[in-house]
């Protein structure tokens, strides 16, 4: 029983990160129709930048964190402007190919700059595990889960009340109408990528001590993808629920069935969803004009 609770808690921490990755992808997709396959690579770059500042330059955690996020924002804007903006008119799946090319470029660049070996990122909080009602959690786990939840709340508030947030929603619903209302669609495109950068950048750095920092770590975050599909790529709430759900299911499967099952589970779920309800489990319904 305790084991089950422990697994569920571990799964929840993991799920929170999946959810955040998915949220970033969904926000980008809703506004720009782009599926960002390179999401994991942005996480990876954030970890590397954080590592460079923290270990190579030796600065303390907070400035490293902030500066790394800044670099990722810059990188994301570059991707949006140089690779995606010129291809606005192309068919939808071309974006997938483009972000795949970006994935290749980022991985190769990381290997060239920092080399293929993994690096260790020093922990930012005490390593002592907390013991809450028999469940072990490290301070870092708490920080990760806490940050995930705080970000979700901030996102919700942002979309509801902030001017830019509302602008993003307008662009998501109807680009033409939004631009007629005086909203600069191009600026919104840049903003969503910046928003995504903050989300994934945080994940990258917060998870770095646990995962290490290496050029292929982006592959771990393919799950963010699956979660986004669970939300039909349109529902933010769906991504959140889906993220936690997947995290827990995966962790349980990994323990009770086998560790290989962990990876396969997410893809089986993905295929089932795509066959049975391609619009996702929690997708907002779209009425089609006949």
């Amino acid at each position, binding site marked *: 029983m305790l084991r089950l609770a422990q697994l569920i808690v571990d799964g929840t921490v993991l799920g929170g990160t999946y959810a955040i990755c998915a949220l970033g992808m969904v926000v980008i997709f809703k506004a720009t129709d782009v599926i960002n396959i390179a999401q994991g690579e942005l996480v990876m770059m954030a970890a590397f930048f954080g590592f460079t500042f923290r270990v190579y330059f030796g600065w303390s955690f907070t400035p490293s964190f902030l500066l790394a996020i800044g670099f990722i924002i810059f990188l994301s804007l570059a991707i949006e402007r140089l690779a995606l903006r010129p291809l606005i008119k192309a068919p939808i799946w071309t974006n997938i190919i483009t972000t795949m090319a970006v994935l290749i*470029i980022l991985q190769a660049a990381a290997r*060239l700059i920092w080399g293929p070996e993994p690096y260790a990122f020093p922990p930012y909080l005490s390593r002592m595990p907390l013991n809450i009602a028999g469940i072990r959690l490290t301070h870092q786990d708490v920080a990760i889960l806490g940050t995930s939840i705080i970000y979700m709340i901030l996102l919700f508030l942002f979309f509801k009340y902030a001017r830019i947030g509302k602008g993003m929603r307008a662009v998501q619903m109807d680009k033409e109408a939004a631009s007629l209302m005086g909203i600069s669609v191009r600026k919104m495109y840049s903003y969503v990528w910046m928003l995504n950068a903050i989300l994934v950048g945080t994940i990258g750095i917060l998870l770095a001590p646990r995962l290490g920092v290496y050029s292929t770590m982006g592959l771990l975050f393919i799950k963010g993808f699956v979660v986004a599909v669970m939300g039909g790529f349109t529902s933010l709430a769906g991504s959140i629920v889906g993220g936690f759900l997947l995290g827990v299911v995966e962790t349980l499967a990994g323990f009770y069935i086998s560790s290989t099952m962990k990876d396969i589970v997410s893809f089986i779920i993905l295929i089932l969803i795509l066959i049975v309800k*391609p619009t996702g489990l929690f997708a907002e319904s779209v009425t089609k004009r006949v």
Partner: protein
Amino acid sequence: MIYIISLVLVYSIAAVGLDILMGYSGQVCFGQAGFVAVGAYTTAFLVKNGFSYWVSLPIGGIVAALTGLMIGLPAIRIRGHYLALATMSFAYIIHLILVHWESVTGGPRGLIAARPSWPFSFEKDKYFYFVIIFIVIPLFIVARNIVKSKYGRAFLAIQKDEIVSKSMGINLTIYKTLAFIVCSFYAGVAGGLYGPLIGFLDPLSFTILDSALYIMMIVLGGRGTLVGAFIGAAFFAILPEVLREAKKWQELAFGLTFICFLIFMPNGVMGFIRRYQVSFVEKIREMEFLRHYFEEK
């Protein structure tokens, strides 16, 4: 050198199959590497267990085609990026099977793919090259026949307007699935040729990224042209050789070149050529017209 050409031919037959599926029938597929893998491993496995290569290769293609049928049927109702995701999952699952079903696939250690030994040994590159030529060229011709026939017209019709296609009597289920079957058959044959060409099979050659490479080939060469598939395949087979020295820079160059192509030649090389052809022809007409006009005076 012969080796490179062989590789180009093998890639291009898989790319041609994908072009029929994506360029003509308009169905996105990120699972081509999966179909190639099915063909490659089936052929190698049969050869390993004593079957003649000449029997194993077609069987590899057919098994791949059956896999294509399995994927194509449910795919009928899915479109766009959802289809991309679904086919991506298929590719990933195949990859996982390759890695974990060790008794059949040899797992991460891989599987040896032997070249045919009957009626004589085809071990030498230049002998196997002829095997490839004699299989790839007819397949290319068949692809062209398909595309120029009522089937090709039906595929294009489905891509552009499903509703009107139905009213023209085109059964979407049959044709969409047929496109998948043709594509996966070609991929399977490509796989069966790829194995002996390289000498062994390794799950790392069949990932989602490899599927994406096939898509990049047809995007670069020009979707829906068949010839474009060949051009793209040539590019992607030759590039690593050109950059052989600077192996570290290979992937970076790949990615950057591809993005440049996407931006400056979104319709691929063939699309670019055709557009130039059109404006070239128009310029000639214009000059002719002006000449006649001034001669009248």
